[in-house]
Every structure is written in C-alpha cells, then in structure tokens.
C-alpha cells in the first residue's frame, strides 16, 4: 500500500513542464562550446567535465545523473572515451531520449576518421582505445566535420528551430574555415618541429601541423610517466633531440618539468579544450592560444 501511494505521488510529479530551450549535456567542454556556437541561446548546455580533468576518469556523480535525466541531447566524443561513466549516466537517467539508439545521443567520433587504431588489443599495452585515438577535437578539420553533423542533429531533434541552427552553422563554418586557413599559415613554421608529449592527447593537432612527435613521457598510454622510461627518452635526446615537451592541461606538470630540466628544453602546457587556461574561452580563442603557445615556445 505504501508503495502504491508513493508511486501515485510520484506520477503527479511526472508532468513536469518542458523548458523552452533545448537541454544539452556535453561530455567535454569542446562539444559544449560547439553546441553554443550552433544553438546560441536556444540551448542550455551543461558540461560534464572540464579541460583540467582527465576525461577518461570522470565519475558518474549525482549531478551528472540529474543532468542526463533532463537532457534532450547528449553530445560526447564516443570512441569509448567515456566508457567508464557515460553508460551509467544513460542507464541511470530513465531518459529514453538519450539512449544510444536515440537521436538525442550524439557521438562526435563517428563523423571523423580516427587514427592510431591498435592492431592488437591487450591491456598489457596500457589503456588502449580499441577504436583509435579519441582526442579528435585537436584537429580543426575534425571540428568542422562534427559541427556539420551536430547541426544536422540539432535540426532533427528540434525541427521548430531548424532554420536557426542551419543559419548559425553556416555562419560558424564560414568563420571556422577562414580560421583554419589562418592557423595553417600561422602554424607553418611548426612543421618538422620535434617534440615530446606527456600523453598522446594532441596527436591530431600535431599530425595536422606536421609537428614531429618523437616520444611520450607515459611508457604506455594512460600509465603515469616513470623515471626509467623518461631516462630512456633523455638518452634518445642525444641522437634525435626534441625542442619542446608538451603536456595537456589535465596532466600533472611534474613529469614534463622533470624532463624539461634535464633535457634543457622548455616545457609547455597546452589547453586540452576550451577552458584549459584563462585565454581559451571559446573554440576560436582556444586554437589561437594553442598555436601561440607552440610558436612562442619554439621561438618561431
């Protein structure tokens, strides 16, 4: 009897009014920023993680379950990047709109070509991503592809505002393509620059810019740097010297500082996403910032 009364009371509360703006849960800040570019004030965006957090290890905390419950759309990277927490959010949410088979479930990685797909799947190789490197947001051409797909998705789930999304997408794409051309010419001096990275976080960026990544501080993906591995890298510096050691905003700075001091090269932090440092407030300023940090550190 008690249960029946409870459920009756609860079902009264179910008829909650639908808000005017689209509720979007973005797993990462870059997709939150992209959604804001495309939807403007027609979407209320909640970001599950920040650029200072290791997105592999976000916890399915209560506020995220509440956000998933309300969401009309979740915008995530996919490619199993969020495998430790996103499945919990969708299953706990009681929200059919954002289940993986629903239009409200958007995985950015489906719209770009992933690189570094492992030939062999064995956890002995570290925290390998079976579907390839998921950090796709660091190539602006990927962002352009995702923007196109996301704009289509927004139009699909919110047809009343389809023209709005289309118009904003076209404006964004135009600015973005111009920016890509600008970044490409600004970044030209970085071609061939040899660097060491902490984690394989910017492989797409460096591939696009032609930067030569000669080593990673992590002995295996997702495994904290060890002194012995970094000593080997220092040895390799003698024959194939890197000019720079790069870490992402969520990495512990100590490893790259240790390496930089011994190799006599600068250590720099690159914002991993929008919000990774004070300057990166949207997608454009984030890329501007990454390029200026690299150019400055490389002395170009």
């Amino acid at each position: 009897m008690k249960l029946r009364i409870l459920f009756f009371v609860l079902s009264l509360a179910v008829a909650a009014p639908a808000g005017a703006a689209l509720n979007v849960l973005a797993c990462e800040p870059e997709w939150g920023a992209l959604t804001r570019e495309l939807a403007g004030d027609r979407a209320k965006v909640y970001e599950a993680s920040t650029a200072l957090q290791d997105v592999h290890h976000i916890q399915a905390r209560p506020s995220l379950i509440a956000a998933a419950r309300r969401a009309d759309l979740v915008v995530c990277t996919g490619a199993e990047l969020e495998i430790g927490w996103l499945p919990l959010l969708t299953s706990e949410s009681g929200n059919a709109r954002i289940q993986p088979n629903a239009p409200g479930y958007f995985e950015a990685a489906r719209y770009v070509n992933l690189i570094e797909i492992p030939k062999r799947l064995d956890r002995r190789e570290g925290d390998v991503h079976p579907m390839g490197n998921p950090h796709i947001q660091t190539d602006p051409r990927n962002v352009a592809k995702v923007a196109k797909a996301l704009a289509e998705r927004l139009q699909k789930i919110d047809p009343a505002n389809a023209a709005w999304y289309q118009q904003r997408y076209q404006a964004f794409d135009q600015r973005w393509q111009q920016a890509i051309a600008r970044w490409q010419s600004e970044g030209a001096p970085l071609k061939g620059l040899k660097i060491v990275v902490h984690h394989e976080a910017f492989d797409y960026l460096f591939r696009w810019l032609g930067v030569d990544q000669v080593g990673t501080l992590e002995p295996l993906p997702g495994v904290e740097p060890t002194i012995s591995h970094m000593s080997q890298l220092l040895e390799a510096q003698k024959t194939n010297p890197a000019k720079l050691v790069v870490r992402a905003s969520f990495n512990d700075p100590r490893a790259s500082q240790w390496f930089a001091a011994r190799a006599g090269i600068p250590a720099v932090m690159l914002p991993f996403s929008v919000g990774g440092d004070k300057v990166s407030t949207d997608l454009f300023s984030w890329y501007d910032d990454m390029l200026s940090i690299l150019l400055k550190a490389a002395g170009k």
Partner: protein
Amino acid sequence: MQRPVAMLVAAALACTVPVAARADTRDEIAQIRQQIEQMKQDYEARIDALEKRLAAAEAEGDKAQQEASQAQSAANSAAQQQRANAFNPAVSLVLQGHYANLSQDPNTYRIGGFIPSGQDVGPDKRGLSLAESELFFKANADPYFSGTLIASLAPDGGVDVENGYLETLALSHGWTLKAGRFFSKIGYLNEQHQHAWDFIDAPLPYRAFLGGQLGDDGVQAKWIAPTDLLVELGGEAGRGRNFPASDRNKNGASLGTLFGHVGGDFGVENSWRAGISYLETSPDDRTYEDGVTNAFTGHSRLWIADAVWKWAPNGDPTRRNFKLQGEYFHRRESGTLTYDTTGIALPGDYGSNQSGWYAQAVYQFMPRWRVGARYDRLSPGSVTIGQVDSGALTAADFPILQSYAPTLQTAMIDYSPSEFSLLRLQFARDKSRPDAPDDQIFLQYILSLGAHPAHTW
C-alpha cells in the same frame, strides 16, 4: 629502376661496337662520335624523364596508400562501431584472493548483542585463500530491456547467481524498472559490489542488520526528478529470501523498501549525496543458532541514513582525491521469539530497538596510492525477551543477546597499478565478540578482466 640500368648498358654497347667495326676515316670517326654523343644525350634525357616519372609515380603511390589507409581506418572504425553493437553480451571477470592473519578463530565469529544474520558475515578462512570470482554478463535484449547476470564462483566449487535482472531502457520521465535478483538501492554501500568497496569487508551495521548486503528477488521502481539537484525516489518489493527476512511460502512480497537520495555538486571540486531508506519485512520462523536453535516471527523495520562527500582538486580525481562516507542504521523488531525450536519450543514476546553506524574516510594522496580508515559501532539499545521477563528462562539462556556494544576499527592502504588491478593491505581490531578482540591483517588482490567496468559513484 631496372629499365634505366638496361638502357645504360645498351648505350655502353652502342659506344663500343661501332668503334671497333669501322674506323676508316677520321671524319667518319668524328661523325660516329657525334652520333654517339647524341645518343648518349638522348638516352640521358630519356633516363631523366623516366626517373622523374618514377618519382612522380612513387609519390602518387604514397598518396594512394595514405588515402587507402584513411579509408581503411574509416572502415575499421565503422566495423568497430558495429562490433560494439554485436549480440554477444559484454563479459567481464573479477578475480580476488587474499591472505588473512587473524588472532581469533574465524569459526567462532559472532556479533555480540545482535541476533545473528545467519550468513557468512565474519572474516573468511585464515591463511591464503581464493575469494569469490565474479563473472559478469551484460547486454541489451532489445530496445526495451537490458539484462545482467552476475555469477559468483565460490572458491570451493559451486556457482551462485549473485545478480540476474532486467532493466528497462525505453521508459522516460525519469523512470526505470528492474526485476529479478539485484542488490537493493537502500543505503549507499549496499548497491555496490564487494570488489568496489574501499575495504575488504562490509562495515558492522551492514553485517548485523542486512546480513552483509541485501540482495533479493523482486522488482524495483525508481524515479529521478527533472531538477538540477539529483532527486531519486524509489521502492522495491521482494520475496525476502535472506536476512532480515526469511524465505516464505507465500504469494505476496514479504520484503519492501523505500529509498530517496539527493545529490549534487558544490563548485567543481565537491560532490555529495545523502539519502534515507526504509526496509520493512515480516520474517516467519527466522532461525538462528545460539547453543540451541531459536526462531523469530514478527516484524522488522530498518531505517538507514547515508551521506557521502567527495573532493578532488579541480574535480579531477586521478591524482588526489578524498572521500568521506557514513551511514546510520536503526532497527526495531517485534514479534515472537521461540526458544529451542527442536526441543521445548518455548515461545515468548520479543522486542528490540537497536542501532549502529560507521564512518570512513579514504584519501588518495598520489596517483595509484590510497589510505583509508573506518570506524564501526553498534549500539545494543534495548532488547526484551518474554521468557526472561516471565522468569521461565534466564538471560544466560540467550548468550548471544547479552547486551554488548561491538566496535570495529580498520585502516587500509591500497595500490592500484591501473584501474584494472588493486593490491590492498588492511589492519583491523575487531571487537565483534564480547570477550575476545580479534586483531586482523589482510592482504588482498582484485583484478578485473574483460569489458571495461563502469562503477557507480
């Protein structure tokens, strides 16, 4: 490259042969020389052109290869994405083992002052032993339901279905229904699997009031409010196959729960959750051993209040994080306690009003390393036994129920080389028994293999 080489040889032959054959006049020789020179230049030009074409072809090949590999990677990722939807359930396996050094014989374990929960709630064997291995299967049945089976493989043989349930996928408005055998959502720790706990064993109140962990056969309905704050309300109805219920031969449910949790964030660095849960059951002939076999029939009502707070710098728990959790239990039982069911079978009124709590803190002070401490305490409250009040029997006839406040102090340090493996060292002073404190040392390993685990918060 072979063709240009062959041409060079031909050119060389062309140089030597005519010279040997006709060397009549100087004019002729000069002419021939000129011709040869011409031929040489011709061939060099041709070879040059061929080399250029070859280089171009190679570059073209590279580009084609690049494009092919891109297409391949696209195809691969498409194939991978399809594989994620393959029909086989995701399988994962949790392996555990430990070494236990106990100053008291684990066979004498009991919690003084509390009706035993009739399950293995004390420490396992002494020495080295394999603990239960758990095999997880999970997949979506169709767009409407997902299914989960968790089989527990006992170290000395035998398979136990720890969990086996369906869960709805397509309900909306925050509703989720579950049916089958599952861990109840009451409290905080109850729903988590033992391998995800921060200590090797359950806190004392869980052992005394829930027989370790409440997992019943039944149905669960849960609703999440459309609010910024997490508000989760729900209830369960079950057959009551285990303590504090007793498996009954009846059509209706004999165990019911209600639970409500709220949770949210304070800024980026702090997250919290708090809740209230209620469990009501009507055990019938719930027996326990206390020299003789006694049985309780009546009503059992349990309240649980739980709270958890987690902190991490910048909200990123990978380097450092802190977790504080505590739960308070209060139980009232009333009914009939029958003394010595197989002998004199003397019934009497029974009533108890008991409580207990635990609090624990776990701090990850550097990547991979965590330390933790826990304090558990049970309060015997008041227990009335009809046979003792009437003078038919004495308190000494119910040795376990003699008033006592058990405590357990625990400290641990654990090391996780990766998120898939963990080694833990735990020390405890267990005063569950009234007269004999048990000093315990455990060394434990936990491995998780296969599909990536997703742990509840």
